[in-house]
């Protein structure tokens, strides 16, 4: 039985587990509940957004480095997969993993250069990456197909369209689970702690012995590899690649928006953001066609998030719940001179320092009194 002081945490853990199991059940049963293949494609698009945004969050969430150029890694993953299948004649899913490995290798020199700068400079360098890739893939038409695009053969040619969608739905779901698992493992590791320290105060982290540059580079490469996997899987699913869409700053901006909306510090933040933004984009396109109205909605949403929920929806909601249940932090009171004297006496009397002579523990929930 949990002790009284641990009961709220125990309840919270059970609630989280329940929500996770419910989420998994909904996700697994969605293809059988979807009324038509169109809804299934919406589900796939949302899952693709979720993987991309979670992949972005390896860098953005852990280190606080905002990359607007992650679309380049998705595009490279898609094109590398497509080219390895069409020109290298590799099996589709071998090509997918080889392309992710190639993008990871390419991310090393990119990260080596880009991660030397911080803040706005890093954002600009990341934008430059996606623009360079756009120019290269548009101009090198003999190899990439240029503006004519690149047709990627379907990996399951004998399947019906709806079956094809269903298989890819589960593939994207599996990739999302893998990305979330990797994020969760890093979050709980010593490496993750170092990354979060970089986000909080990079100079301070260095002064405590964290090799910040190496940490950033490693997580940048991990992030690029997952982004490339998402891009490659999209390429195999969609089957038609165009540089304008694959190397778009907008795709990187959506990754940032989704992660910010849900909460970059939270495992499920980008996933929640992807559900909201992905559904919103599909709805907007369905209702208003090819007008740029969906961009207006996305911009408004970003403004609302930054102004009213800078930490995202999940932290805002959990903070509200903690306030309502009264489980938030209350204890920051400093000790008084008298208590200091007591503590000194205790130490001299070789008594454990966290116990006062009167037998009471220093109470952490007292008012500020200096």
């Amino acid at each position, binding site marked *: 039985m949990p002790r009284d002081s641990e009961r709220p945490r125990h309840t919270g853990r059970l609630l989280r587990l329940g929500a996770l199991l419910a989420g998994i059940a909904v996700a697994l049963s969605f293809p059988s509940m979807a009324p038509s293949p169109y809804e299934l494609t919406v589900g796939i698009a949302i899952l693709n957004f979720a993987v991309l945004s979670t992949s972005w969050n390896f860098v953005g969430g852990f280190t606080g480095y905002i990359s607007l150029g992650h679309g380049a890694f998705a595009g490279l993953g898609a094109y590398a997969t497509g080219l390895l299948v069409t020109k290298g004649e590799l099996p589709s899913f071998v090509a997918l993993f080889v392309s992710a490995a190639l993008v990871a290798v390419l991310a090393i020199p990119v990260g080596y250069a880009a991660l030397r700068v911080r803040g706005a400079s890093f954002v600009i360098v990341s934008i430059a990456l996606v623009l360079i890739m756009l120019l290269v893939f548009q101009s090198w038409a003999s190899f990439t197909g240029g503006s004519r695009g690149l047709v990627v053969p379907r990996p399951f040619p004998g399947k019906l369209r709806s079956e094809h969608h269903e298989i890819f739905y589960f593939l994207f779901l599996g990739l999302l689970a893998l990305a979330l698992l990797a994020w969760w493992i890093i979050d709980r590791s010593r490496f993750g702690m170092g990354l979060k320290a970089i986000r909080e105060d990079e100079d301070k982290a260095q*002064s*405590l012995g964290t090799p910040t540059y190496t940490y950033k580079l490693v997580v940048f490469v991990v992030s690029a590899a997952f982004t490339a996997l998402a891009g490659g899987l999209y390429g195999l699913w969609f089957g038609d690649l165009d540089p304008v869409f694959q190397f778009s700053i907008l795709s990187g901006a959506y990754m940032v928006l989704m992660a910010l909306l849900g909460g970059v510090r939270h495992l499920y933040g980008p996933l929640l953001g992807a559900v909201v933004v992905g559904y919103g984009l599909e709805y907007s396109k369905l209702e208003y066609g090819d007008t740029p109205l969906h961009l207006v909605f996305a911009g408004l949403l970003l403004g609302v998030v930054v102004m009213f929920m800078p930490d995202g929806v999940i932290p805002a909601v959990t903070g509200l719940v903690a306030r309502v249940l009264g489980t938030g932090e209350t204890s920051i009171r400093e000790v008084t001179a008298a208590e200091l004297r007591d503590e000194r006496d205790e130490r001299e009397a070789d008594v454990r320092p966290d116990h006062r002579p009167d037998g009471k523990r220093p109470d952490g929930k007292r008012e500020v009194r200096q």
Partner: protein
Amino acid sequence: MSADEGEQSLATVGLTKTFGGVAALDGATVSFRHGRVNALIGPNGSGKTTFFNCVTGMIRPDAGRTTYRGRDITARPPHRIARAGIGRSFQLCRVFPRMTVLDNLLVAVRPPNLLAQLAGARKREETERARYWLTRMGIDHLERAEARNLSWGQQKLLELAGVLMSEPELILLDEPAGGVNPALIDRICDLVRELNAEGRTFLIVEHNMDLVMSLSDHVVVFDRGRPIAEGPPSVIQSDERVLEAYLGV
């Protein structure tokens, strides 16, 4: 501590750093001995914090050399200098605001190699060691609080605990008493004395002269980016150059 008392700890030769033509450090040559509580004093703008930043690798000096226990550390990055055994606090107290008090200390754990850092899991003994330092600072009851919610004084103690968690032999404290209430100043002084008695060397930048004179064994006075006097507190207090530079008399 492995170094012998009296052995040279930190030393600089001709350390120079200019910012837009202004020499913050102007060929500073100075050395500090192991096992002492050293103090670095001087008027505002005399180069004390720049000195800290240069010797800890935060700023690359334009010229000069820094050695720690005989090894050249001039061009090393900050994390390698920290791992060589030099810990530091900052003038404006810096903690990881959105991390818990306990995690603020666990960041400073030093695994044996990069692989252990990247792939190693947190260990129970590391947490126990972090709790030991929190208890010693008197902030163990706050271990689950986010550091940003702590008062200024508590953040000062947390910062010091984080530095100690990285197991430094030499600790550089930049204005440890700045903005802290008198009771906490006493506690910080006690801690410095205790830690010094356990073998740690201190180099303290501080404007609180009562603290400096009562706590330190050796005082170096900076003016215009270079040392102008050094010696025991009793000598420094009556040095005319110091009185002129620091007190304007």
